[in-house]
């Protein structure tokens, strides 16, 4: 890891810690959800970051298939892995929030299910990447599989939505107390920065790994 990357990484981590401390202390408890609302300050930003990362995967997949530039494959590799990490974290946070508010750890809610399906699909594609030795094929195959996985997301969402829905409606920004909104925005910023950093670091790692593979 280069020095610049290390320094920016340390900064991103510090910012994130600051955001979380603010979430635990600065915001007042909410009147209906009491202190549980604090989970939202880490849950909602991670949800946004996970969605954004999943979308990056789709863009990278299309990018590779249409240009064959290795940068797209590195980005695909990076976003698959970061997406899985964020998606798993998102599901755990959701569970921890779900139990005290809905009385259940897991429920077949459209958003929950879509994220779970996406994470599982990406996990499968990461496994595929691990089991294919030819870099060219690995790139094309995982790009094709990523696009296919994306084709299934809207249907997952819709199917489960029709079956049942419990998940909270998104609170409109205006309806939130300004102290809370500020903390939420702060955390959205810090999580976004950290995610970007992880993508950059993983991208570079992918580049180094490919180089190493081609050398041997």
């Amino acid at each position, binding site marked *: 890891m280069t020095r610049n990357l290390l320094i920016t*990484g340390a900064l991103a981590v510090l910012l994130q810690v600051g955001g979380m401390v603010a979430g635990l202390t600065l915001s007042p408890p909410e009147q209906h959800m009491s202190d549980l609302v604090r*989970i939202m300050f880490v849950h909602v930003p991670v949800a946004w970051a996970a969605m954004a990362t999943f979308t990056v995967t789709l863009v990278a997949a299309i990018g590779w298939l249409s240009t064959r530039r290795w940068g797209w494959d590195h980005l695909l590799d990076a976003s698959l892995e970061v997406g899985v990490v964020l998606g*798993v974290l998102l599901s*755990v*946070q959701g569970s921890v*929030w779900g139990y005290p*508010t809905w009385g259940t750890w897991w429920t077949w809610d459209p958003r929950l299910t879509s994220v779970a399906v996406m994470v599982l699909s990406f996990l499968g594609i990461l496994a595929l990447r691990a089991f294919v030795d030819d870099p060219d094929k690995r790139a094309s195959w995982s790009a094709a599989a990523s696009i296919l996985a994306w084709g299934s997301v809207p249907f997952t969402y819709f199917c489960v939505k029709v079956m049942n829905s419990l998940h909270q409606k998104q609170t409109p920004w205006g309806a939130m107390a300004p102290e809370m909104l500020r903390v939420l925005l702060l955390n959205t910023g810090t999580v976004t920065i950290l995610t970007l950093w992880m993508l950059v670091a*993983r991208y570079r790692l992918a580049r180094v790994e490919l180089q190493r593979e081609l050398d041997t």
Partner: protein
Amino acid sequence: MMGVVTDPWPYVWAAYGATTLALGAYLVSLWVRSQPSGGTSEER
């Protein structure tokens, strides 16, 4: 809105703990893998 619990703090800590753990572990794994040996034992 409060369903089955009276004390929300354990859940808050669990959520923040999980976040710290997951992101922390991933950052460490990124760091380990970007060491020259690649974090694997196949060092030449």
